[in-house]
């Protein structure tokens, strides 16, 4: 999958201010709602929290991938954001997270969501890219890291 199609300047953000899992998720959903048109924030939040209740999406290396499936959206929505401070996200390695990848996808069409996550996870396994992401000073720089990392 070509990340360019999903990731735009508005879909990345640095300096999330939340300090808890709940706050971070609300911020990320808020960003998706702001970028989209006519999205129901409540139903998106419910989808993400329902998924989180099954199993935490905190991975390793300070990465979390909160996501949800709901038929209230008709296509894949994705954002990538970095928080100002490390946040406890119930990660697999018990360490706090700073890099967040959120996707909301239609329940009956999960291909793009999984492709996107697989693509991004491929980049996030690289130590050099993770360091660059955490050091990014603005959104343009963050976006560039992902788009150039894929090339």
């Amino acid at each position: 999958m070509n990340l360019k199609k999903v990731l735009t300047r508005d879909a990345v953000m640095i300096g999330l201010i939340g300090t808890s899992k709940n706050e971070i998720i609300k911020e990320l959903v808020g960003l998706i709602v702001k970028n989209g048109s006519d999205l129901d924030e409540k139903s998106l939040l419910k989808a993400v929290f329902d998924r989180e209740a099954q199993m935490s999406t905190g991975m390793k290396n300070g990465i979390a991938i909160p996501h949800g499936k709901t038929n209230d959206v008709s296509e894949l929505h994705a954002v990538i954001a970095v928080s100002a401070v490390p946040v406890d996200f119930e990660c697999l390695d018990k360490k706090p997270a700073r890099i967040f990848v959120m996707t909301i996808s239609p329940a009956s069409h999960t291909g793009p969501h999984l492709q996107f996550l697989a693509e991004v996870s491929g980049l996030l396994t690289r130590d050099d890219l993770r360091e660059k992401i955490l050091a990014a000073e603005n959104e343009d720089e963050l976006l560039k890291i992902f788009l150039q990392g894929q090339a």
Partner: protein
Amino acid sequence: MHEGASLTHMMTVLVLQLAVIILAAKSFGFITSRFLKQSSVLGELIAGMVIGPFALGSIPLAFLGGQSLFAIPIGADLPVSPELYGFATVASIVLLFFSGLETDLKTFLRFAGTGSIVGLGGVIATFLLGAGSAVVFIPQVNSIMNPTALFMGIIATATSVGITARILSERRKLSSPEGVTILSAAVLDDVLGIVLLAVVIGLVRSGRGTDSDVDWGLIGRIALKAFGFWIGSTVIGIILAPRITKGLKSLKDMGTLSMVTFGLALMLAGLSELAGLAMIIGAYVMGLALSGTDVAEDIRHRLDGLYNFIVPIFFCVMGMLVDFSVLPKVLVYGLVYTFVGMFGKIVGCGVPALTMGFNARGAMRISTGMLPRGEVTLIMAGLGLSSGVLDPGLFGVAVMSMFISSLIAPPVLVKAFKGGSGFKKSLDTKKSEDLKSISIDMPSVSLADFVMTRLLTAFRQADFFPRRVGHGNLVYAVQKDAVQITLLRDGTTITANVPPDQETFVRLLLTEEILSLKELFRSVEKVAGSDAMERDMLGGLF
């Protein structure tokens, strides 16, 4: 046939024949698959030879009034009764309908590249060698445009990839570059074989396939007509099939839907015969048209019972047609024909593979994968025999080639797939890296089955095209663009074999699916946990 024999007597004999055929086919099939580790098809074929009119079937039986059970009808073209041959004909339609259903045209068109060239090479080489060998070895045949030579040519082209698919999936090699190439080459092989058959039958029927005076204009017209009918009905079928199945789905009865589609397959088979082609062409086209619809898998599942009943009868009847008395005379030609058929596949498929980035090892793997022969060889040979183009000796030659190829291919194939990469060194990129295996263990077979169904749906929702590989295998090739994943269930274990660059994707997909399953089971527990359901069920009983 038997003057004065009452209809009841004829039907009694038929029923007894079917009984003996089914019992013999099933027991011989069981022995070959269980103890000899060979395809059960070979056992069914041997069963037919053993109980047929040229062996045990010729023994007069007192309770049939001194008549033998498989008496050769007097003055008929075939050594079996027309009623019995009717069953074999319907079976050949079932076989080709299934073969069409198993073809995923969409997937094939997307991965066609290497596979088509390999398949095309194999078809051309085997056709020329098969037809050529007839010219050299059969005195009455002087040109490869002679109908007999043409038939020996097309019979040599047929490949039955089911055996290959089973072996490769057992060895987890089905998703290897070689495995993918074999599967798509086999599709082209089927389609080309069918179209060639149409052309040859057209030529034979027009009486213009001769030794001399080759009228290329006429051949062109017949080829065009045959190809036109094939492509025309396929395109119409592909356009109409989703509408027809959608309409039928409103019946909310998959059993009815499946039988209606089979009825349509019989209809198209008959129509294609009337159009001067062979019945199996119509059956294949109907299957092909339906293969792209979402009910294809369901149709196959519902028709399994029919398949299991009638297909062994087919192989058994084909075995009965083998007249041992003529075999010694054609033994040498039979061996030569078998050998050139295999040689044609190895050279015809191997050389194109070599030019497409495979090394000698890879090319050998692909070409040995194309060696097994099966039902299509026999159907074509049966058509040749019943239309008088092939004599019993040449029919025996065709059966011999099918038999020997299917016997030799599996061990050779297993050996070929040992060792390192099948790619040329310069091209040996990550593509040839070993596949990653991801396994999930389930507590019971029925749960594993259920989870398998869910996983296939999950892959479908992720834009993949799952299709079952071969009949009776619990192996699915799940394809999307250039990616192929194999999913198989062995007992209670579900395994996914994936290329390394897809591992993350598949792990994510499996995780999501397992989570939603757990959610499902939790909701079941909630209902079941209260005991209220069971109490309601048993409420008034005691």
